């Protein structure tokens, strides 16, 4: 039971990073990235390949950040000038293309076999049980650092400018904000965070494959961010923890339903996830931790 909890909490931290990534682009800049699973994959593969070629794990994570940001820029460059619904569809297609590349380019990604034996930092030294504790600490630490940085960003003039763009692009560009550049930067940063989550996942599980990066995980993260509160980093993180716990809890709930075939139980589980998202959107559209709309800046002394 304990190792199950540790595992689940580690996963929570990784989902938390994904939720922070989505929250930055959606909550702050108002753009929808339905290709989250794609960026998650890019980071996982970047770090797995880099460390596979002999680089230390930290360099692998750096590579994930870099590649994630670059791919984010490439994807958005052609589409950012478009309306948001176009961007949503393009990013969805992008995730599928990433999966196709991972599936078919055997020379690079080992194809559908996936990459196994990815370096798990200090696992040999610590042993399986201690490694689980260590990695939980590490993943949580990374999450806390990214969360703190994004919170600072949220309150900074840059963050406020992003939100201004979200609320009214034309007004923002009127006010002299370079809207397109801001959007590109935000998207690249968001993609980099999702890629970092992928790198954390790869070294946690030591195995990745194209099958890992199906669109379902993107839905989970949307559920997390909407449940927690769009536009607020703390909300996104809380939402991620709730979603993972909810996903796991549905296993135990459906066990108590008698008289159903296993396939019906499985269907019920997935139904519950969908219904939860719809309910949250209806009942708590602002999420559990609603966004705090910052007041107009006042001199610190007066505050």
């Amino acid at each position, binding site marked *: 039971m304990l190792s199950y909890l540790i595992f689940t909490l580690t996963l929570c931290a990784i989902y938390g990073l994904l939720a922070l990534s989505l929250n930055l682009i959606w909550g702050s800049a108002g753009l929808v990235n339905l290709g989250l699973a794609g960026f998650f994959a890019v980071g996982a593969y970047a770090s797995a390949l880099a460390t596979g070629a002999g680089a230390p794990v930290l360099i692998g994570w750096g590579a994930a950040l870099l590649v994630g940001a670059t791919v984010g820029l490439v994807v958005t460059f052609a589409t950012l000038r478009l309306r948001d619904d176009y961007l949503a569809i393009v990013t969805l297609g*992008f995730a599928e293309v990433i999966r196709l590349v991972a599936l078919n380019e055997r020379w690079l990604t080992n194809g559908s076999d996936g990459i196994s034996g990815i370096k798990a930092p200090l696992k040999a030294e610590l042993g399986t049980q201690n490694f689980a504790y260590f990695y939980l600490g590490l993943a949580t630490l990374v999450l806390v650092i990214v969360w703190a940085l994004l919170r600072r960003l949220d309150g900074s003039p840059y963050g406020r400018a992003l939100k201004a763009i979200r609320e009214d692009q034309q007004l923002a560009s009127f006010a002299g904000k370079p809207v397109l550049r801001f959007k590109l930067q935000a998207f690249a940063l968001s993609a980099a965070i999702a890629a970092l989550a992928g790198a954390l996942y790869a070294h946690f599980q030591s195995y990745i494959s194209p099958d890992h990066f199906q669109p379902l995980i993107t839905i989970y993260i949307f559920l997390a961010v909407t449940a927690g509160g769009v536009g607020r980093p703390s909300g996104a993180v809380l939402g991620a923890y709730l979603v993972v716990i909810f996903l796991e809890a549905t296993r135990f709930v459906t066990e108590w339903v008698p008289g159903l075939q296993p396939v019906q139980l499985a269907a019920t589980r997935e139904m519950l996830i969908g219904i939860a998202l719809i309910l949250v959107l209806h009942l708590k559209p602002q999420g559990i931790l609603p966004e705090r709309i910052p007041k107009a800046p006042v001199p610190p002394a007066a505050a």
Partner: protein
Amino acid sequence: MSQLLQALINGVMTGTLIAVPAIGFSAIFAVLRYPNFAIAAYATIGAFAAWWANVAMGLPIPAALLVAFAVTGFIGVVAEETSLKRLRNNGALIVAIASIALNLVLENIVRFIFGNEMRGYDLPIARDMRFGDLRIGPQQLQSLLLAVVIMAAMFLFLRYTRFGKAMRAVADNPDLARLKGIDPAKIAIVTLFLGAGLTGVGGVLIGLDTSIDPLTGYRVLLSVFAAAVLGGLGSIPGAVAGALMLGIAEELALLVVPATYRTGVGFVAILLMLTFRPRGLLGERAA
């Protein structure tokens, strides 16, 4: 040469499969202004409804198509009214996300009732007709004809009937439409019925060529989106043109690109289109 020509013909046939659900998707988008991801489930539901009519009740396929249209339209309206309607004020993206969740729920209701096993219609299959080196599928030709008829009917309905005009008015400006005495809520219901219903009909056509299982619609979701974007989001003739374009692009690309990258071809086509003509083939302003 005949290889190229055959690939073109194949493209039209493949595109036809996507065209009808793309019309449904575009109709909903045109009026309600959000991309409805639940069309995957609507296509699946249509395929199952027609299966029930055709195999369990023994009706012929044309009657089964009508059943699929009615059942899916009805379910589409119910789903919209219960789970999406109230969110429409919160912006297109929120509704789009809710529709993803709705899709998951509907797909699993189908799975719950019917299980995962594949099913098929009670309809003989015809060999392709041959013209020299070229071949054309008679059933695909019928599907193409059906798609064109549906497109024309939708187009004429929107352009010339009072209801159609009201739909377009709501699409352009709901507040103004209300002032003119049009009830946007009623229009939304009709739109959903038509859009979901047509997607259901499209699902039957897909089910005829593939298999009927809970993922029938999901497998073509990306292609439908790609077709709608290529043709121009919200344009009915655009949906058909986009679907045919996508089909042709995919089949032509097979002559040079490995077959496993078919989905990628659609994506590149979208990127190219959006770069050079952001509003799509026949769409309105996109930026």
